[in-house]
């Protein structure tokens, strides 16, 4: 056990801190995240130059070209978060790795540089209304007609579809093949005729996601990444980077401290909430969970920094992390009593209504990207080696 960073990393952290202090006046001050704004693009460019964005993307495709070093990446993320300065991005964290691994040289040259500079933005066309947990059953068709694919169908849960320049999309090109073998992976501009984007209102009142409808959308057959029918494997080559991720234990810790703060300052009948033993006990239970996940995150980070698979400690992060966040939001609402139900810029609203917003959003995160049930299947099967559910075909 060594909770300190080595000198090399301490020096690196100093560098990052200094860079941020020296350059933060150049960072976009607003919260908008849309790549493509000028100030955003020049900031991203500066970050790439210094190795704080697109850090491991090869220089020939516009990146910084460093060797992967998970601790350095972690330090960069930590310091930008601590300083509350907009961090850099690496284009799209699914698309860019996919292109690097499986794209043609032409695709890499064409798409990666503008993407990591933030001049070209992407949305992802995977999920469909009929295929949630069972993604491979997707039904959006792409038929070859001359040099084009002609796409018909519908995607859902497409975040950023209203603003993205491009989509990377899974379509069914071989309808008669087994479901995993009939899918192709296509790239095309969102302004291609026949694409209709409709916002999808969420329970929170926001519309972060969209439905995307395709009606005879023609894209050249050269839009494909990998071979026809191999799209499932192309997509999964990068999905593996995402599942069971690190989560963000810092966010959970920050949220926990907000609750402590709340309990020390809000009162009911003139009594501090912290003086209610029942609430305090609930707070302590959450603290133990929050700390467990924080240390678990450090354990995963240590594994990752050595290039090892973390295994179970990593598999459980999404399930347990989302649940913890949801429970913290639930507690804050209870603490606030009647005030906890306020929303939408109401008088007396606490913290901008963030707790209700989080309570719902976290439930969405428990559901999204593999429901808690799918997560438990994966933990049972992949981490514990329990057998899969027997397949039922055509039932």
């Amino acid at each position: 056990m060594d909770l300190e960073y080595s000198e090399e990393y301490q020096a690196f952290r100093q560098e990052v801190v200094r860079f941020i202090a020296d350059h933060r006046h150049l960072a976009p001050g607003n919260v908008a995240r849309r790549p493509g704004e000028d100030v955003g693009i020049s900031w991203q460019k500066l970050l790439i130059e210094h190795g704080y964005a697109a850090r491991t993307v090869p220089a020939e495709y516009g990146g910084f070209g460093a060797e992967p070093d998970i601790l350095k990446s972690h330090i960069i993320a930590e310091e930008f978060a601590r300083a509350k300065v907009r961090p850099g991005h690496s284009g799209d964290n699914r698309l860019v790795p996919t292109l690097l691994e499986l794209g043609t040289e032409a695709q890499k040259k064409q798409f990666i540089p503008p993407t990591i500079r933030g001049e070209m933005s992407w949305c992802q066309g995977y999920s469909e209304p009929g295929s949630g947990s069972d993604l491979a059953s997707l039904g959006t068709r792409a038929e070859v007609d001359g040099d084009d694919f002609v796409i018909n169908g519908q995607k859902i849960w497409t975040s950023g579809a209203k603003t993205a320049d491009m989509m990377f999309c899974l379509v069914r090109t071989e309808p008669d093949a087994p479901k995993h073998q009939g899918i192709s992976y296509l790239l095309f501009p969102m302004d291609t005729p026949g694409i209709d984007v409709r916002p999808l209102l969420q329970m929170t009142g926001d519309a972060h996601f969209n439905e995307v409808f395709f009606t005879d959308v023609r894209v050249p057959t050269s839009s494909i990444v990998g071979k026809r029918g191999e799209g499932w494997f192309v997509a999964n080559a990068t999905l593996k980077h995402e599942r069971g991720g690190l989560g963000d234990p810092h966010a959970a810790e920050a949220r926990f401290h907000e609750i402590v703060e709340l309990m020390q300052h809000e009162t009911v009948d003139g009594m501090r909430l912290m003086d209610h033993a029942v609430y305090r006990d609930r707070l302590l239970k959450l603290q133990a969970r929050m700390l467990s996940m924080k240390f678990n995150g450090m354990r995963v980070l240590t594994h990752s920094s050595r290039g090892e698979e973390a295994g179970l400690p990593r598999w459980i992060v999404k399930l347990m992390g989302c649940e913890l966040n949801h429970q913290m939001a639930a507690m804050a609402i209870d603490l606030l009593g009647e005030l906890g139900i306020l929303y939408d810029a109401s008088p007396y609203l606490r913290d901008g209504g963030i707790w209700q917003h989080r309570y719902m959003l976290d439930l969405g995160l428990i559901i999204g990207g593999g429901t808690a049930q799918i997560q438990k299947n994966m933990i049972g099967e992949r981490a514990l080696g329990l057998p899969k559910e027997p397949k039922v075909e055509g039932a």
Partner: protein
Amino acid sequence: MEFSLTEEQRLLQDSVSRFLQAECPLARVREAAESGSTHVDNVWSGLTDLGIHGIVIPEEQGGVGLSLLEACLVAEALGNCVVPVPFVGSSVMAPIAILAAGTDAQKERFLPRIAAGQVVFGVGVTEQIGRRESEGISLQGSRLSGKAMFVLDGVDADQLIVADSSGALHIIDADARGVTTGKLKTIDRTRAVAEVLLNDVEAEVLPGSVGNRGPLESTIDAGRLILAADCLGASQNMLDQSVAYAKERRQFNRVIGSFQAVKHMCADMAAELEPCRALMWYSAHVYTAIPDEARLMACHAKAHLAEVGQQIARTSTEVHGGMGFTDLLGLHYWFKRIGFDRQLLGAPELVREEAARIQGWV
């Protein structure tokens, strides 16, 4: 020994439910929510015709003279359909406060108009349950000043009933000089809660409540039972929607309800919710029949339904997957209704502590 609803009670609930399903489908709820209204005219007038506003008001004052159990059956039906219409404050707590502490003249003046759907009452008593920040109303002579922060059905109300800091109840004209009403926005857009600022406002005391907390407590108990019943109805609907969705939605070549995980989520919801129905019936029954048990049972019904409702709201959303998180099916209207029922008139921990005090355990 008949621990069940009577035929009349079942018929009442059926007729209210049928009316609401016909007149207040989800589309109507959405329309109201989007327009910011929590008072849908056709529903209000239809409920008037069914006698619902006078459900606890004696026949001599134009009501139908039923007990709180019947009022809870109505609340359950309203929760089941997430109906945007005043009820808990205006049609239950206000008449109960007036019946418990009003003079005959006050009863004659207000109750027939409530029963006839001609007047909406807002009720502000939350500072007597758990005072937040600067809530609280003080009495000087017959004039009130201060703030009632969570006035149930208080938006667009004609009359208000508020408790002063001693627990005495007063009726105020909502248009009286010195009254400022502000709408509070909550996650539940089917309910109306207002803050009311009073600046030296002329008020009319309900004399039976002076020096006697009984009427205030009865009013709160009734409100808690109604919120619990509303939560029961909304939770039942979320369970029913989950089961229906699980029978229909297919993934991996099977309807998802055939997966043990989904099946057990539905079974857990049913197993938690079903005993709540008996708890609700008993609690509402003793409110009238066994007053000694009334306050304790109102606390238990309120707190337990809050816990079970929260679990069901969450589980049902999970069963619906991503669709539960969107606005498409409107499932969130129930989710939020249950959230509202949980927080108002005492969040569970506070209500349980009250139940401990009632039993002399503190």
